[in-house]
């Protein structure tokens, strides 16, 4: 892969130089996540890529359809991972367990979600297993539960799946119904160390051609390069728009942070709270931004203007970087950005799974009104 700064375009491999861009891009697609384990995970991955050589990044169509593939991701809390860092073999072990169970040898790895650390650990797994990485994933951003994937919508079962904790213990799950897998896993994540390396959705490249979201890994690398190239926020938003389709809903100043103990949907673990932003310029609207584990909806003067599954992020205008949700303070000047998710999430089934209804907001999505 070309490591030239400022390069935007398709990539054929991932090298150690691409790791910072990959990390930044992965963060764009999961704005809620903090930077707790940035240095440990990036240096680990860069070291691996230096030792084992670049990981080939292949489009799904470039892989023979019968090639067995498996997805990997991190399950559980990112801060737990910072407290109890990986021993290093968790992801490889998880993949190997499914290989043993299914008596196959996976020819490629793909990220369950090309966002957060999960995007990076997929590269780790590919480097350790010395297989190519597919330029595709199951979410195109992050969602809360492991069956919130395009594969699940296409009828691919997440199981058999293996979760390996930093303690070396593992859980193997097989369920007939996808949504049950997440409940069973969550019960075990704490026990195995607060987080676990997950290998799931074993299938073939042929199935992934129709079931996975293509091009999402090279997309985060490109987004990451834009974010690293610190520029004027206006220019940055325009450039991001060309790659991700994101647009600025408004620029405003944070006026109020409301932490309300409101009844929340039980299936998604998060505390609802609310952020009030006064638009500077424009119509001077009052924006209300609803927070769960991510930003789930934006209301302008009470009218819904964006909502899950849209990816909504805040850009700290004064610093020109993405604002993480735990760093917000009244008085900050922010750009509210909305990035459309992949089209599959706006289908009725997609909306039912990850739309605003799943966050307890019974309103029609602005795209569907």
């Amino acid at each position, binding site marked *: 892969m070309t490591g030239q700064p400022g390069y935007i375009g398709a990539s054929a491999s991932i090298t150690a130089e691409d790791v910072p861009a990959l990390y930044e891009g992965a963060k764009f697609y999961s704005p809620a996540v903090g930077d707790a384990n940035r240095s440990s995970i990036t240096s680990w991955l860069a070291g691996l890529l230096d030792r084992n050589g670049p990981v080939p990044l292949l489009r799904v169509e470039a892989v023979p359809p019968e090639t067995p593939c498996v997805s990997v991701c991190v399950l559980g809390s990112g801060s737990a991972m910072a407290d109890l860092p990986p021993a290093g073999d968790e992801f490889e072990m998880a993949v190997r367990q499914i290989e043993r169970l299914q008596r196959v040898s996976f020819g490629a790895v793909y990220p369950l979600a090309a966002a957060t650390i999960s995007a990076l650990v997929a590269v780790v797994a590919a480097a350790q297993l010395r297989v190519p990485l597919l330029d595709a994933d199951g979410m195109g951003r992050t969602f809360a539960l492991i069956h919130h994937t395009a594969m699940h919508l296409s009828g691919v079962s997440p199981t058999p799946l293996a979760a390996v904790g930093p303690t070396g213990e593992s859980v193997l799950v097989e369920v007939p119904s996808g949504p049950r897998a997440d409940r069973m896993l969550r019960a075990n994540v704490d026990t195995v160390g607060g987080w676990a390396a997950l290998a799931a959705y074993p299938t073939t490249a042929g199935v992934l051609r129709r079931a996975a979201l293509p091009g999402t890994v090279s997309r985060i690398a490109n987004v990451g390069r834009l974010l690293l190239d610190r520029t004027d926020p206006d220019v940055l938003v325009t450039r991001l728009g060309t790659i991700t389709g994101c647009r600025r809903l408004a620029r405003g100043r944070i006026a109020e942070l409301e932490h309300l103990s409101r009844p929340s949907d039980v299936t998604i673990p998060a505390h609802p709270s*609310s952020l*009030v932003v006064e638009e500077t310029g424009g119509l001077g609207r009052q924006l209300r931004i609803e927070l769960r584990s991510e930003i789930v909806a934006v209301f302008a*003067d009470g009218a819904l203007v964006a909502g899950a599954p849209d990816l909504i992020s805040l850009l700290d205008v004064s610093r020109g970087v993405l604002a993480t949700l735990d760093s917000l303070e009244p008085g900050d000047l922010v750009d509210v950005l909305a990035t459309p998710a992949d089209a599959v999430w706006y289908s009725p089934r997609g909306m039912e799974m990850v739309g605003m209804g799943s966050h307890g907001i019974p309103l029609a999505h602005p795209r569907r009104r």
Partner: protein
Amino acid sequence: MRRTSTLPITLGELARIQPLAAAEPHLADPSRTVEQVVLAETFDRLRRCTPHVLVVLHNEAATGGWSLAAALHLAWERNLSAVVVSRSVAGGSSVALAERLHMSLILIDDDPVDVALQLAGQVSAPAAARALRQARLAELLAEQTGIRGVLGVLNRELQQVPVALVIGGVVIAGQSAALTERPQMRQIEVEVHAPGERSAARLVAAVPVSGPASVEQVESLLRLARPSLQAAWAQSRLDAATRAAHEQAAFGLLRRLPSAPPPSGEQAGIEVPAWTSELGWQVGEANRAVWLAPLRPSGEPPPEITYLIRASWQRGHSTWPLVAEGDGWISWHSGADPDDVVALRRALAGFRDSAVAHRLVIGVGRAHAGVAGLMRSVAEARLAAHVARESGPGAVQWFDQVGANAALAWLPTTEIAQVADLCLEELMAAKDRAALVQTVLAVLDAGGSLSQASQHLGVHRNTVLARLARARQLGLTYDEPGQRLALHVLSYALTALWSDNAAG
């Protein structure tokens, strides 16, 4: 056609009675009517609301944060009258959003279901709700003992409707905005009869045509205020009457002091008695008296007028005395510096409107020391007031500027005119008598100079000559030295009387 009181109730009215009286209202438009109350549990229910509905949010629709913002937006879209929600879910930003959308938001502490039920009852029977409001107002009015208090309650309760108590065109209490005529405003009046007397007191309210309160309603509320007002008024009149009598007696006593011989034959001046300070009076170094007199004296003024004059004269100068004396009123200002008239001038300027309304003239004496000086100043002020009558209502005459002319003011013009009727029969029968007398007066005033007289009258010298010739023929032989003084006085009296009559 009279509009009946079964009109839909307005937000402003609802907000004044329980349960919303205890709530925190943020009303964008109190005159919005409320035609129906909806208890909305879901956003679907909100979406089905028709305009002019007051919606009480409950359950899912009232979880705060986004839900209230979305509800406010929906309410705005549906043109609802107001949104009622539990205070616990509404923050400052929700109120700000409501203001931005110009949507009324009412925050309650009670159970939304109970509130919605009560509101539904009130909205379905607006007459009953209004009666409830009147009852509440009656209670508030009953607590008031003063006229200002009663008017305060009326003005507070009738938002956007200024109310004033008016006697003879002068605002006694309340908001004078009630009297200004404006488009889209209807003035209504309710007579307030002082107990046992004919009285011209009126309660005046200016009701906005498109406002929250209907005309009948305001009228009935004003009538409700009448008994409290009468009681308060009787009380204050009783007080005022006592005080007036007290002051009158005290002033009489004060007046007699200078004439009584000093006990030990000393001429050091009269000591100011201590009891004057009990009345709040000051008699000091420089006492300058003011005489307030009616333009046309007609005997002793009734106590109501004294009360009114006192109210407006003592506005801001509550220690200044006001003593009814003869057909006028005496007041004075005491200070250390005889030349300091700033306070007095300001008071006179402030009193001018009332003076015009009551057709009063004002004379101001010079500043003199001590009780004797005060009495002298009173006499001067009275003289000045007589001179001021020449200039019509509201006129102020300072004795310093009168001089010997004051003598003229005492001329009994009416009687002198009767003399003219007898001695100058021919002249008084002439149609142009006014012009003739005026011309003769001008020539005499100018010491016989025809050119000065013609300049003063603004007519040609020949005209003056012709009028003089005619006046002489009719018996006004002004150039006979033996009659000159008598005819000069006569001409002065006639001119003064006629110009007075023309002005009246």
